[in-house]
Each structure stands twice: as structure tokens, then as C-alpha cells.
């Protein structure tokens, strides 16, 4: 059984996301690939926080010494939670810019925009 499969898949999706940003010519597809790239980073961080057979990070009782349990590490959860919301906000800004590009240039294909520049 391969351990660390999570990290392997996270890195592979990371590289595939960058690959999709470089090779695709449509601006919307580049933004969506950026979203996948971000999702792989979140997967990596939350995989770091897993402990086998741990409890989810909601305390059983307020005084930790009375019921000591092993809880999953809550710190990456919080950072990734806000990363998801900020990611969708920046995706919306990128798509708004793409709409304006389409209105002013008439195309959202990168090779056509490059040809227009000359």
C-alpha cells in the first residue's frame, strides 16, 4: 500500500494545473485551470493535518484535561477555508475582466489577441 498518495496526487494536479495554464489558448480555461491549481494546494495542506482515527476538531468538553482526545489538526482547516472563499472572489474578478476584454477586443482567444497586438 502506497502511503503519501495524497501528496503525490496533490503535486501531480499542481503540475497539471500549470500545464493547462500554459498550453490552453482560451482565457476562461486558463482561469479555471488556476482554480484547479489552487484546489491542489488546499488538498496538500489539509492532508498534512490528518491524523488516523482522530476526532474532528470539535471539543468533547471545554476542559481539555477532563476528556483528552486526539483531535485532527485544526490550523490548516482554517487557512484553507478562507482560501476557498478568496479564490472564488478572485475568479469572479478575473471573469469580469474577461467580459470586458471580449467587449473591447472581440475575442477571448490568446493567439488572436497576440496577433492583434502586431
Amino acid at each position, binding site marked *: *500500500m502506497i*502511503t*503519501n*498518495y*495524497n*501528496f503525490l*496526487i496533490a*503535486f501531480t*494536479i499542481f503540475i*497539471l494545473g*500549470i*500545464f*493547462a495554464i500554459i*498550453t*490552453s489558448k*482560451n482565457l*476562461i*480555461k486558463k*482561469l*479555471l485551470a488556476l*482554480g*484547479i491549481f489552487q*484546489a491542489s494546494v488546499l*488538498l496538500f495542506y*489539509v*492532508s*498534512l*493535518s490528518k*491524523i*488516523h*482515527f*482522530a476526532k*474532528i*476538531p*470539535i*471539543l468533547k468538553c*471545554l476542559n*481539555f484535561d477532563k476528556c483528552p482526545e486526539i483531535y*485532527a*489538526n*485544526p*490550523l490548516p482547516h*482554517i487557512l484553507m*477555508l*478562507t482560501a*476557498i*472563499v*478568496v*479564490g*472564488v*472572489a*478572485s475568479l*469572479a*474578478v478575473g471573469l*469580469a475582466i474577461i*467580459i*470586458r476584454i*471580449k467587449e473591447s477586443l472581440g*475575442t477571448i*482567444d490568446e493567439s488572436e489577441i497576440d496577433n492583434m497586438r502586431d
Partner: protein
Amino acid sequence: MTNFDFAAIDLQLSLIIESFILSLLLILTILFVFSKNLYFAIIYLIFFSLCMAIMYIAMYAPDVSMTEAAIGASLTTIFPFLTLHYIKADNQSNDKIKFSFIAIITALTLIICLAIFSYMLPEYGNLKAPIHHYTANSYITSSGEEIGIVSVVASILASYRGYDTFGETVVILTAGLCVTLLLYEKKITPMNKSSNDIILSSTLKLLLPIILLYSLYIQFHGEISPGGGFQAGAILATAMILVCLITNIKYFLQFISVKLLTKLSGLGVAIYGLVGIFSMIRGGNFLEYSLLLDNKINGQKLGIFIIELGVGITVFAVLTLMFILFASRQNYDN
């Protein structure tokens, strides 16, 4: 009865299931990269977000899973669909993929290098990894008594790292501002046609109160169970989008206008900042909730309650505003 080692079988089974879901994620990514039709690419992205949400549950992160399902699977995909709808020409919704030899070789080299590094990381799920012993351990052991709420995630998010959350709420507000600057027109003339389907309108009448109640439940139970302001704001925004899809945007704007949404988005951040300033007036640091009331624990609880409300209001208002601006943009040259 032979003695089965249930813990070991349980571990192997959970690793097998996780490996299956991860392989599914990899297949979906490959399909996404090599797909030429953009509509298919967005569908692969929806499925990807759903598998990520399941993975987060398998890694004991219910807060992140709920946020991914509420925001990633629904809102990250509706904005590209709206953009594609606006860009109506058919040849623009296809992608020409250009394969260069150098890009493929570089990608393979980097994957092999990172795969080697991934085995130098601590073993997945091992309790002895160094990150579990210092900061996180101190938060878990002391947050129950210092702050008094049961959810460690909510207490770190809102109290120990409350300043970060304030910054993130301001980032969401700024994104709403940017989209408004780019797409706002003084006369919004949204489409007036709606589907007169009786099944859809009856379903809306049944579902809408349940969704509204659920979002309020998640908002106010963020301290006891997974939840909080971000998820509740996203679910409320999704409910509003549902209303806009089944009836039309003109009808929706009679009740909640764009002006009201812009004011609400500022109101959420203002509530958050005012809590911080009020605690400075009482003699402490910015966002030090212990000084809000006379009892320290009650002050923390009140502070967390109010700022989660502020976060929920801002997230709801910004996401709904973005949807309305995207969906009511008219093609002037068509």
C-alpha cells in the same frame, strides 16, 4: 472466533477508499486539461469540487468540506457558465490546445522531482509528525477554557486569528468592488422572461424557506458545529441565485435592489471593524473580545457571534451582487 485486528483493517479500508477518490480526482484533472469544449471543462470542474469535498470529509475536515461544497461546487461553476453565456459565439467556447514538446518534458520532470520529495514528507496520518505538537496542540488544549466555545475551528478563526479573518472579509469586499467597477451600468435592464413552469415554481415555494432556515442555522451554530459565516453567506447567496433562475432577475430586484446589496456588503465589514474599535475604546487591543463584556468568556462569545454575523452578511451580499452583475449584462452590439 479469530482475533481480527479491526484497527488495521479499518485503516487499510480507509486508505483504499481515499486512494480511489484521489485517482478519480487525477482522472478528472487530465480530462479537464485535454478537453476542447469549455462546457465539458466546467462539468469536470463541478465533479472535481464534489470529489474534493468528499476527500475533506475523509481527512476529518468538515468545515472545509462544507465550504468547498457550498462555494466550490456551486459558485465557482456558475460564474464561468454566466461568462460563457455572455460570450455567445460558438467558436469562442472551444479551446485550441497547443502542445509544445518543451512543456510536456518540463511537466514530467517536475512531477518526478516532486514525487520524490513527497516521500520525504512525514508519513500521512502519523501522529508523531512535528506539526501536531506545537501551535495546534496549544490551541486545542487551551481554547476550551480561554474562549469557551466548543468548535476549535471557530475559536481560532474568529478569535485567535481574528485579524486574518478581518483581512479576508475585506478582500471579499474588494473583489465585489472590482466586479462592480467593471460591470456596473446605471440602467440595469435585466431579462424579463421567466419560465412559467409549474413544477419549478412549486419546488421553489417548498425549498426556499428550508434553504433560508438552513443558512441561518449554519450561521448561528458555527460555534457548536461545523459552520460559520462563510458557509452561511454562500448558502444564502445560492438561495437568491435559485430565485433568480426560476423567476427572473427583474422580479428579484424589486425586493433586494443592487443599492441594498452594495450597502450590505459594506455593512458586514463595518460591523467587524466596529467590534475591534469598540474593544479598543474599552482599553484593550484591536479585536480583543474579552473586554466587550464584564465576563471574559461571555465577551469572547459575543465578539465571535457578532463578527461571524458581519462575515456572513458581507459574503452573502458580495456573491449575490456578483451574480446579478454577471447575469444582467447586455450584449450591446448583438
